[in-house]
């Protein structure tokens, strides 16, 4: 068994690409070896900025010989079939075997030296390497077909046991020689094989194992901070990035002027991190005036000059930040907000100032209607009017990630109420999954209004997500709304909210468009379909969001597709939860089976009964049926009729029992649903289980007596309707 070493050396590989490159190298190598039939033991892949290295243990000297059989045509087949088979296999007819009237091609492939396999595999790996971005270079780039790599490839070491694996890729020939650290070691190093590779490089100031470098940085930086009585703010992303930028990492601690600490700590941390890749430190939970940079050399002065240089660069960055901090505070946020009139939000939706106007009104409405309880309407509107103002400040221009946060700081600095500052700071939240969900009422109102406006506005102008395309992040907006609603238990009726948000847009258009065009605009952009599409979009998002919590999507449909329901999330989701508990019980399973049986019979018999009497076009507002005072007595009459159809015959015992059970369960379920006591509603349904089972066992629905048949079908319809008061079981799977 023999070990194999491969090193691909090149100019500095971007730090962010190294982890992917290691994975790809391992994968491609494995694929090549598998294709050639070479069994491979343990494989290790390492990376530094200047090299990718792979060590594969325990390879055989040569591959096993392989016998390959291919079945051909029957011997009786027409000659064309035989000719084709010969062409395919490259054999002559006398080389084929005739087995019971069928030709077989049998090819013995002798084993190959693994060194040869490797010599072919290396160029294949290099050429197939899936770098996220690659380039051409040098003389060969006269042709666009020349070798591509992430940066110029400069050397290949390939040693099998102690033997060179000879290969050429582009203009590079494999060899035993590599280079050590760019500055700490001059001239080539000769590698003997897999076993001395790591040690020889270490002697030349290269730690080839990225995990070891990461540990050196993690521990070294922590220690450097501890030595001066500080605590490092851990940042694994920075650890990995710095390990990807160094072959000989040396963490060094430096100080910056304590006066810079008047700048918000997030700003300092961000500029140190993103622009300079420095760690920051804390003392007693507060940011300290210290940073840790990671050098790539061990300097004779202990890094003093390096720290001095880095300190100066950071000072320049922090001066810029302090300048922005001071400049921005010279104007109040409402003055900054004037600048939003110059920024387009979307060409069809006006400026950011227009958006702010809509959001401010929506936020006030959410507070006034009591949808967001405890939010002062005036403060909600004020916060909404200022929430986007920081977008035109210098600081956010420089660090867009600080949007919201800076607005919060500036609001506090000018003495605005805490609720307002907090709402400005947090109104973008939640940004992604796992992000904090705001609960402060004013913040909730602003955040909700902002996202609702975005979602509805883009739906109005037909910029709706399709497939993987969601350029305006509307799915994220909907998800954010759902999380806020659930966290605070808000009763937001989705169709109504959509209507309100649409109205804000409509009012703005009134100011822009002449009257006759405005009418066209409404007809085209605020069709009835919109008020179904937005709530449906929410339900789709809710299914995705609830999947992780183990909530079944079919149960969500069973509740959210009910005709008689409120178009909101909290109560309906509670009903879904109760339903999921119920269908998991024995009663639930059996009731579902009975429901399906009843529904099938009704379908088969084409029974429309009482339910067909109110014409449905699919267009009407479901709420109108319930709320319309003219219809109420009619509906009440229908209900009464359904309840006591007045039988013309003496019912069977089982039939009577079901009627009684329904008489008892229906009002119980209705009352429970009214108070959102869904457990009780489910229990009411459960009480139907035994009677319906008995009914099916003992009663013949399809009786010869037509009046009996009609009454019994009616009874099943009543049972189905009773179930539908709680959930539409037809959507439940299984």
């Amino acid at each position: 068994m023999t070990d194999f070493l491969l090193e691909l050396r090149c100019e500095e590989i971007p730090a962010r690409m190294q982890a992917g490159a290691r994975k790809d190298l391992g994968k491609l190598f494995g694929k090549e070896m598998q294709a050639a039939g070479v069994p491979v033991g343990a494989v290790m892949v390492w990376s530094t900025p200047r090299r990718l290295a792979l060590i594969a243990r325990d390879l055989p000297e040569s591959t096993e010989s392989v016998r390959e059989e291919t079945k051909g045509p029957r011997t009786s087949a027409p000659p064309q079939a035989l000719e084709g088979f010969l062409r395919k296999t490259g054999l002559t007819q006398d080389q084929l075997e005739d087995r019971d009237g069928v030709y077989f091609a049998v090819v013995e492939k002798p084993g190959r030296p693994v060194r040869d396999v490797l010599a072919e595999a290396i160029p294949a790996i290099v050429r197939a390497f899936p770098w996220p971005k690659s380039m051409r270079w040098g003389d060969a780039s006269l042709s666009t077909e020349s070798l591509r790599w992430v940066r110029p490839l400069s050397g290949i070491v390939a040693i099998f046991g102690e033997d060179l694996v000879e290969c050429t890729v582009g203009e590079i020939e494999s060899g035993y020689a590599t280079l050590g650290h760019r500055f700490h070691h001059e001239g080539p190093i000769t590698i003997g094989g897999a076993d001395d590779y790591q040690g020889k490089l270490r002697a030349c100031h290269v730690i080839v194992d990225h995990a070891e470098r990461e540990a050196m940085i993690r521990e070294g930086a922590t220690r450097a901070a501890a030595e001066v009585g500080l605590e490092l703010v851990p940042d694994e992303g920075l650890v990995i990035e710095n390990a990807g930028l160094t072959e000989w990492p040396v963490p060094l601690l430096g100080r910056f002027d304590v006066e810079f600490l008047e700048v918000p700590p997030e700003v300092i941390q961000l500029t140190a991190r993103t622009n300079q890749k420095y760690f920051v430190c804390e003392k007693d939970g507060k940011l300290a005036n210290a940073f840790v940079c990671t050098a790539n050399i061990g300097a004779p002065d202990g890094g003093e000059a390096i720290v001095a240089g880095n300190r100066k660069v950071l000072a320049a960055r922090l001066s810029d930040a302090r300048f922005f901090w001071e400049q921005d505070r010279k104007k109040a946020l409402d003055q900054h907000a004037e600048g939003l009139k110059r920024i387009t939000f979307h060409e069809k939706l006006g400026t950011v100032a227009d958006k702010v106007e809509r959001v401010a009104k929506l936020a006030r409405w959410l507070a006034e209607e009591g949808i967001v309880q405890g939010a002062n309407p005036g403060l909600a509107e004020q916060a909404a009017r200022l929430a986007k103002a920081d977008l035109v400040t210098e600081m956010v221009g420089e660090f867009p990630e600080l949007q919201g946060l800076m607005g919060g700081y500036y609001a506090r600095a000018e003495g605005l109420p805490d609720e307002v500052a907090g709402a400005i700071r947090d109104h973008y939240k939640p940004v992604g999954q796992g992000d904090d969900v705001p609960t402060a009422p004013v913040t909730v109102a602003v955040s909700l209004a902002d996202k609702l406006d975005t979602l509805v506005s883009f739906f109005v102008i037909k910029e709706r997500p399709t497939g993987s395309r969601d350029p305006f992040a509307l799915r994220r907006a909907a998800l954010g709304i759902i999380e806020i609603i659930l966290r605070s238990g808000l009763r937001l009726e989705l169709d109504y909210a959509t209507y309100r948000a649409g109205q804000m847009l409509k009012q703005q258009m009134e100011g822009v468009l002449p009257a006759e065009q405005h009418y066209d605009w409404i007809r085209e952009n605020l069709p009835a379909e919109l008020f179904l599409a937005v709530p449906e979009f929410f339900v789709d998002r809710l299914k995705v969001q609830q999947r992780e919590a183990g909530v079944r999507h079919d149960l969500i449909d069973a509740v959210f597709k009910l005709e008689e329901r409120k178009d909101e999330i909290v109560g309906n989701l509670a009903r879904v939860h109760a339903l999921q508990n119920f269908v998991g019980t024995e009663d639930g399973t059996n009731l579902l089976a009975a429901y399906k049986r009843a529904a099938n019979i009704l379908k088969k018999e084409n029974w429309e009964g009482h339910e067909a009497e109110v014409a449905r076009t699919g267009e009407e507002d479901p709420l109108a049926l319930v709320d319309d005072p003219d219809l109420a007595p009619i509906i009440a009459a229908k209900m009464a009729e359904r309840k006591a159809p007045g039988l013309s015959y003496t019912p069977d015992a089982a039939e009577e029992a079901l009627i009684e059970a329904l008489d008892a369960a229906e009002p119980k379920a209705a009352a429970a649903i009214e108070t959102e006591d869904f457990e009780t509603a489910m229990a009411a349904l459960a009480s139907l289980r035994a009677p319906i089972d008995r009914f099916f066992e003992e009663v013949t629905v399809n009786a010869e007596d037509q009046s009996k048949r009609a009454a019994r079908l009616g009874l099943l319809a009543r049972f189905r309707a009773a179930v539908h008061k709680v959930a539409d079981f037809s959507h439940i799977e299984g």
Partner: protein
Amino acid sequence: MNGTSRPGFQQMILTLHDYWSRQGCLILQPYDMRMGAGTFHTATTLRALGPEPWNAAFVQPCRRPTDGRYGENPNRLQHYYQYQVILKPSPPDLQELYLKSLELIGIDPLKHDIRFVEDDWESPTLGAWGLGWEVWCDGMEVTQFTYFQQMGGFDCKPVAGELTYGLERLAMYIQNVDSVYDLDFDGRGTTYGHVFLENERQMSAWNFEVADTDALFDLFNKAEAECRNALDANLPIPAYEQAVEASHIFNLLQARGVISVQERASYMGRVRDLARGSCEAYMARESDRWARDFPEWAA
């Protein structure tokens, strides 16, 4: 701290000229037009096109009107110098050649932390992009190092390596001064501020407050028209000059704050069309000769 004991700003430039001259570069003079970066010099853009070898080094004054700070910011200037080196095809030891030049101007890589940090370069205006790094010295970006992959929308065949040294930053580092205006210009105590401070004050005022915007809009349109006029006459180099002119006028309009966000994209598109059109015409004019002399290039 004592500037007079160190080589001055001009000595640094002379050292680089001498070094790159010895590496086989033509030492050119700055392009005599206002431009935002050394990359706009025809020795870089137009010469990056086509198969002919081309090695050149030059200083290019750069104008960034929006970066002006009336001489009050120690790091930011609306006029500063870049040192450009372009080597086509890119030599295999370009990194080593570059590092050697750093040592010659006084940066010891065993005392200072030199790093190549990913930074891909792109100029939408020129229809150009390349892969490379910003070179860090103790955390400060001192050079942009790029392997051009496309220019004017055309593949670079072969690829050129481009180095852009930020001269003032390097000098501040080497001379250990905190303000650009304190740099020793000549090694005899004449400061950078003595040469340029008043210039920065006046130019900042003009860029931000005074420049006649109607005239600038007019100049932009005229440059655009003249570019097209030159292209119609199949004269790509003068056409390209007008593209450079339009680009700078656009930057001035930006500094005057009269271009809205929406208009910005449209103006940039217009400049890009001019630059690309010029590169295209340049390619068209030369490609027969190139194809004849470099059959592999045409393939």
